[in-house]
């Protein structure tokens, strides 16, 4: 039976697997069903984790998302992140398992580990996929990842001529789906290795200059575009931040505002920023460059406000408001204060 391996990242601070692991296992489970209906192929899904130990809750959740097997590569030195050590540990696992497909999270760690692993295996790697499916090409089952390119102006579906077929996927791209009746088996590999002494983490400091925006649990996102920053003025950006604060929403912005140094990059949504899956997204003066769209198009309800009725964002939204976004920000702030 062929295997889909998921490289799962252990979060040592919270002693759990990051959500992206479950997102990838869920997607692999969907792919497994697709392969079966396309050509009757049967895949086994293996979630592979480098850590010192793995809480039972994480293992069970991985099963519920569709993992047939959870493999823990065990060593205490994994608590200090080292891309060289972890890449080699995964290679050791791979040698005995020969997975046909490997999926990696496109996180800070995943981005350092995945290309190392695929370079060692002398195979291809498709970065930041937003779509994953199987196709039949020349009578063969192929993994067909799709990714945005050219500043997201173009989507490309990329196939691998070599095995394993590998891809990285950003957090919040796919949804977690759990099934209570699914179960799997757990195995542990005691992996002995030395740290890589060529690299040392001397200190970790908190950078308070930039408040980091974690969009993973955001229910409502209010996004500022160039339309609220005429003449590179911060007034309405600050008003929108205040509005977001008042209603408990996350403030976000487009790339242009970061380029003009009006907002910190931590708030940027889009291909070179964060990806969000909020219940409600409201774009204030956002024109809708594709690099931005691909970071927010999975939000459930998209409301776009722009005075230019030809703004591209209107092709992607559920609710369209052709009006000056700044005026609406003022009106919203006024009515919030009236409510109180």
């Amino acid at each position: 039976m062929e295997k889909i391996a998921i490289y799962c990242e252990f979060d040592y601070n919270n002693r759990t697997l990051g959500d992206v692991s479950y997102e990838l296992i869920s997607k692999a489970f969907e792919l497994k069903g697709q392969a079966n209906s396309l050509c009757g192929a049967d895949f086994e899904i293996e979630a592979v984790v480098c850590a010192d130990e793995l809480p039972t809750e994480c293992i069970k959740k991985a099963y519920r998302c569709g993992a047939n097997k959870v493999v823990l590569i065990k060593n205490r030195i994994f608590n200090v992140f080292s891309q060289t050590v972890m890449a080699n540990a995964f290679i050791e696992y791979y040698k005995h398992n020969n997975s046909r497909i490997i999926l990696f999270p496109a996180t800070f760690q995943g981005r350092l580990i995945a290309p190392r692993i695929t370079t060692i295996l002398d195979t291809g790697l498709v970065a930041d996929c937003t779509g994953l499916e199987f196709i039949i090409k020349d009578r063969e089952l192929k993994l067909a990842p799709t990714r945005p390119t050219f500043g997201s102006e173009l989507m490309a579906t990329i196939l691998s001529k070599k095995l394993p077929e590998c891809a990285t996927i950003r957090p919040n791209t796919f949804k977690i789906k759990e099934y209570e009746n699914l179960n799997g088996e757990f195995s542990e590999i005691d992996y002995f290795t030395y740290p890589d002494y060529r690299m040392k983490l001397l200190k970790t400091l908190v950078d308070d200059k930039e408040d980091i925006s974690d969009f993973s649990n955001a229910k409502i996102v209010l996004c500022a575009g160039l339309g609220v920053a005429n003449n590179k003025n911060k007034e309405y950006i600050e008003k929108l931040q205040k509005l977001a604060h008042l209603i408990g929403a996350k403030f976000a912005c487009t790339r242009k505002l970061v380029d003009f140094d009006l907002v910190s990059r931590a708030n940027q949504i889009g291909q070179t920023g964060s990806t969000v899956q909020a219940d409600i997204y409201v774009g204030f003066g956002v024109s809708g460059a594709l690099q931005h769209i691909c970071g927010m198009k999975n939000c459930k309800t998209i409301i776009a406000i722009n005075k230019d009725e030809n703004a591209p964002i209107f092709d992607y939204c559920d609710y369209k408001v052709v009006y000056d976004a700044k005026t609406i920000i003022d009106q919203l702030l006024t009515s919030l204060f009236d409510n109180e």
Partner: protein
Amino acid sequence: MNIVVCVKQVPDVDDIKWTKENNLDRSQMLSKINPCDEWALDYAIKIKKSKSVDNVVITVLSMGPNQAEETLRYCIAKGADRAILLSDKFFAASDTLITAKILSCAIKKFIPDFDLIITGQFALDGDTAQVPVSIAQLLNLVDANHIVDVYKIDKNQTLVAQKIDNTIRMVELQNPCLFSVKKECDKTYVPKIDDYIRAQGAAVEKYGANDLEIQKEDVGIIGSPTVVYRSFRPTIEKDTVEITENYSKTILDFLLKDK
């Protein structure tokens, strides 16, 4: 100290032109140095000017068509000492693995005594951030990404600031090493007319597959493990509802629905 800076000439993605058939019209697009790569060069120049290490020689290395020579001349105007262009029709359409192999091969051959490789975090056009990591693996180096500052450097070690979300990690790398930058350097040199004149007269070394002793079938579209199966402009069919009155009231209802 020998510093290698890898640079790429990229189309300006903010100025994309399309043909009638909905393909990218590259002939109509302007090219420029990939912004992160220019910052990488700025860091190299900063190290050179800091005098914390002796005899710094900065080599800029690029793979691309002949026009990329322009980008390399710009790098010389900024302060690079040596420029190498890897250009060959067989290199065209190389994916990230093959690009990393070609660059690593050139580094081994033409800059074998390098101490440091600096790259940009990602390229504007492809945006995979994979080539630097692959180079590090192929040359057996330690690497760090998301670099926002170089604190200290000597012949044996490089101390860098790596920014991950809201934390700064101070990482010490043993040379030779590789790091990729994602933030502008605090010191950037803007070339003056004299610099451009000097750069026009400077030599740009050019090498192809034969010079690198690379087999044609191992590179380019044939040698690359990945292949573009199809490309398309994304379209979405949505039933958009236009709100035509009581804008702020309607929006507020959405925002306060769960409250």
